[in-house]
Each structure stands twice: as structure tokens, then as C-alpha cells.
């Protein structure tokens, strides 16, 4: 059998959550800007 390469399937989960938080924070000024 071939060797096992360990793939961390959660490697990007933390960054994705951070991206979501950034999105939620930016959406409010973005919406206000659109409506000015």
C-alpha cells in the first residue's frame, strides 16, 4: 500500500470564518454607502 499523506480537511476553516466576519462587518458600511 502506498504511504499515507495526511490532509487536514479543516485547514482553511478558520480563515473562512474570519472572511465571514470581515464580510458581515463590511456589509453595513457598504449598504449605507450604496444608499447615500
Amino acid at each position, binding site marked *: 500500500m502506498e504511504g499515507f499523506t495526511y490532509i487536514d480537511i*479543516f485547514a482553511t*476553516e*478558520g480563515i473562512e*470564518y474570519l472572511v465571514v466576519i470581515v464580510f*458581515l462587518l463590511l456589509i*453595513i458600511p457598504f449598504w449605507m454607502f450604496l444608499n447615500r
Partner: protein
Amino acid sequence: MNGKTATEEINSFKDFMIFIRSELKPKGRIFTIFNVISAPIILLGAILIVYRLAKGLGWPVTNLSQDFPWGIWIGFDVMTGVAFAGGAYVLTFVVYVLGAKKYHPIIRATVLNGFLAYVFYTGAIFLDCGRWWNIVNPMIGNEFGVNSVLFLVAWHFLLYTLAELVEFSPAIAEWLGWKKIRKILASLTLGAVIFGITLSTLHQSGLGALVMMAKWKIHPLWYTEFIPVLFFISSIFAGLSMVIFEGTISHRVFSQQIDEEHHRTYDDILVGLGKICAVAMVGYFFLKVLVFIHGKHWSLINTPMGYWYLLELIGLVLIPCLIFVQGVKDRNLLSIRVAAILTMAGIIINRLNYVFIAYKWYIPMSERYFPTWIEIVITLAIVFAEIWVFRWIVNRMPVLKESPEWAREE
């Protein structure tokens, strides 16, 4: 009611303290049946909580075991309790996102119940955690287990509690007479509602996702890759059924606070809630049928667990759904209330199935989990304490009674 109300001027800190002191006095009769029953249980619960913290989770505190690591504190207090609190996100969606003013009279009570439920069920989680002194770890980064469904549920729980507090805060500001602050808080409502609905979607479904890795331990009639979706959809009618149930009681207990118009529109509200429940339950029923067909589990129906499954799905989902339909068509409020109770029973059974009934259904009776009296008393104490706080707030803040003049003018 004696003492200053917040509509009178509070000009100084001294005035404020007089106001607070008068608000702290009990309102209403002290020796009601409910008080006589609930007060000793709350006191006993408090003592038992200290005992639990000192002794650990083992017998006689709980009947949890290596085979059954979760019992009624997770299965009932947290999973069922959170499903029942779903009325808040559904109704705020209807009232604030869709603008259906019909439900406005009950929105504050619903949001308050939602907020209190999450606060007290966080307490239940705290008690259930074996190493409770570490409970802040997922929050402070020791460590951020982003791989975990529970990490997500915990964070969404916390943030949702804050969102509900923001949604309820205008009522607190009205109680205290803080006009400017009330205005600011009211402007945050739609944002908090949108945030709250998003968070609710994920933690309601997330509670179901918690058991996804217990694949072969959960009876095949209940295990499906769609557990999170089923949890989310069922939280809609679970929450609204609780709103119907709790509203029925509140409207009687606090009826002197509720004005003419609110009493009159309440029938419309009940019928409306019944209608939403009926629709959600029809959808849920068909989802369960799809899951059943996809899993090809028909041979399992003719087994004891199969009959239990039919009881839950037919007896406590389909039948109350049909009773809701009849209640809506005939404007029969009793039917709607009966349907709500049956629905709630079905939700309790559904959640408990995933935790210790359909979970390891193959374990013989003698080794199964049954709650201890201590687990039950602490659960009751938590529920009663929440009702006490709810009552305290409703008797003082504009939840069921009208907002003060100055707030209504806006």
C-alpha cells in the same frame, strides 16, 4: 402599581435608586400555586447544583455512562429548549423582515423568551460540561477548534444571545426612561434580527449536525445526512408551538396588562401561527418521507423502533399538522392549542431520540440511560427560574403592556 414609573422624570441618581428599589418589590400575590411549587424546586435545584459541581457528574448526580455520554441536560434542556426558543427568529423574520404587523403585539414577549431561554440553557451547558472551569476556552482561543461543529454551535449560541438582547433592549430603555438610548437601540433592531435569523439557521441545524459522526449508533430510521436540515425546519414549528403554548398562559396570567385591541387581535394571531406551523409541518413531513424512501428502510417499520418512529412521525407530526389545519380553517383556538401541545411532545421525543433513545437503541434496557431525580430537579429548577425572571420582567417592563407615550410617538 406603586412607586415611580419611568414616564415620570428621574432627575437624579437618588430618584433612580428610589425607582429601582420600588421595582424590586414583588408585584402580585406571593403564595400562588405556581410559586409554592416552583420556589422549593428552585432552592433545591440551587443546592443540587453546588453538589454537582463538588461531586462531578457520576451517580447519584446523573446516570450518564460511557455508552450514554449525553442525557436530558443536553437532550432536553439544550436541544429541545433551543428548538422551542425558535419562535424568536421566526417571528422576528415575519414582523421585521416581512413587515407583518399582525404579530407585533407578541413580538416582545417572544424575543424576551428567546433571550432568556438561551441564557438559561447556556447555564445548562455549563452544568453538563465535566470540566466546566474551562468553558471559556473555545471563546478565548484555548483553542479555537474550528474543525468542530460544537465550536460553531457555541459561538453562534453566544452571538445569538447578544443579538436577542439587542432586539429586546428598547424595552429595557423604555422601562428606565432612557429616551436617546432607546432611539439608538431601536435603529439596531433590523440588523440584529437579520443577524439573529442567520445565526439561528446555523445553530438550530448545527445541533443536529453534532451527531453526524455517531452514524451507526443512531437507528437508521433517524440517521440521515439531512439531520441538520430536519432540525432547522422542525425548529420553526417547535418554536411557534411554544409561542402558542406560552402565549396562552401569559395572556391569562398577565391579562390585566393587555389592552382591548391586543386581546381582540389575539385570535388572529393564533390562527396565523397555526397556519405557519401547518405549512412547515407539511414540508417537514414530506422531507421525512423523502429521507425514508431514500434510505430504503421499509423493512424496519415492522419493528419496535419502527413503531416508535411511526408514533413520532404520524402521531406527533402528521396528526397535529392536520389538527392545525382544522383549527385554522374553522378558527378553532382549542384545536390550535391542542395541536401545539402534541407538536411540542413530538419535538421532545425527536430530540431525545438523537441523544439517548434511538441513539444506541440496541443496548438492553438494564444498561440504558434514564435520568436521575437530581437531573430532573435541576432541569425543572432551570425552567422555573427562567419563568420567574420572565414574570419579573413582564411585570415591570413594557413587554405585554404598552410602551410609554414618548416611545410610541416615534
